[in-house]
């Protein structure tokens, strides 16, 4: 295990790595977090479930709000086609290199079919 992976989530990931899919691992981490969160709220409310429910809902709302409200709006795909990148640098100065721009074979002229899957 490398130094950057010394955290509980990464260690659990390594332990579960051989049998659990990423989806199951994420679900397990979420479940552990939820249980730990519920215990914390319960203790903070001194076992009074009415206080705990209020604090829990408020915390859940805060977390969901924080996760879903981004500081920057994300652009839709295909809305960034402006040709002029006005920074004064050429393609080569930006790190661009030459490459073959045509190839003698493959299905370039075949119509696309968006119903087909990605890889």
């Amino acid at each position, binding site marked *: 295990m490398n130094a950057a992976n010394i955290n509980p989530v990464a260690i659990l990931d390594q332990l579960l790595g051989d049998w659990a899919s990423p989806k199951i691992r994420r679900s397990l981490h979420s479940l552990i977090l939820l249980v730990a969160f519920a215990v914390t709220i319960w203790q903070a409310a001194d076992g009074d479930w009415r206080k705990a429910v209020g604090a829990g809902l408020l915390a859940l709302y805060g977390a969901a709000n924080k996760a879903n409200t981004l*500081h920057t709006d994300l652009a*839709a795909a*295909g809305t960034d086609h402006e040709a002029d990148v006005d920074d004064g640098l050429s393609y080569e100065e930006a*790190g*661009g290199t030459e490459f073959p721009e045509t190839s003698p074979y493959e*299905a370039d002229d075949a119509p696309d079919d968006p119903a087909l899957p990605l890889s």
Partner: protein
Amino acid sequence: MAVLLLTGAPVNWAKPPKANTKVMWSQRTTDGKRVYGSFRAIAWLDWINWLCKKKFGRGLIVYQGGYNTTIKLSKGTHDYSEVFDLWIPGVAGTTQRSFFRAHGGGGWYRYPPTFMKHCHIFVLPPVLTSDVNKRYRAALLKVGKFIDGGWSLYGKQVGSSQIHDYLVKPYKDGLASHNSDTTWRPSDLNGSVFHLADYIKQKQAALRRAA
């Protein structure tokens, strides 16, 4: 376009995150999802989009980013970072495949009748030495098990490896059949690798020029 932290705040190029920190791009996928990846992967995406506009006069679109497990045929490849399904509208698939390969992207052009047209591209790890399957792990980058055979996730080989198919002769096509692939690759594959530190310096210089 910009590289964003998970809060949506733009990355501070003067004090950038670690290469393996999970971040996102400021443009969504074609189906509206967020484009996630390591800081190194998203910085590469940002750079290649910038180059793309300079070369072809248009930006690229992302069909699928990293940390995505919703597409059945992509299982084991897009689960973690460093992998994208990309397309440059109006540019021949073979040309864009070469463009990505020339600039630190490994992968293939997929097309009908098996796939919809797209380039399946993984950002090559920073160092390409003898055992290529272990290079993502060495760089602390996590990739799907079929990208590096499982080394970055499990520390051992658990499946086939697309980076091996791409980098090691005789070259293969990265599919389950592992057919031969004779399409163009840069003569110096090491020289094609994306250098994050250089891109950070480039961004810092651009910020100084703009100030």
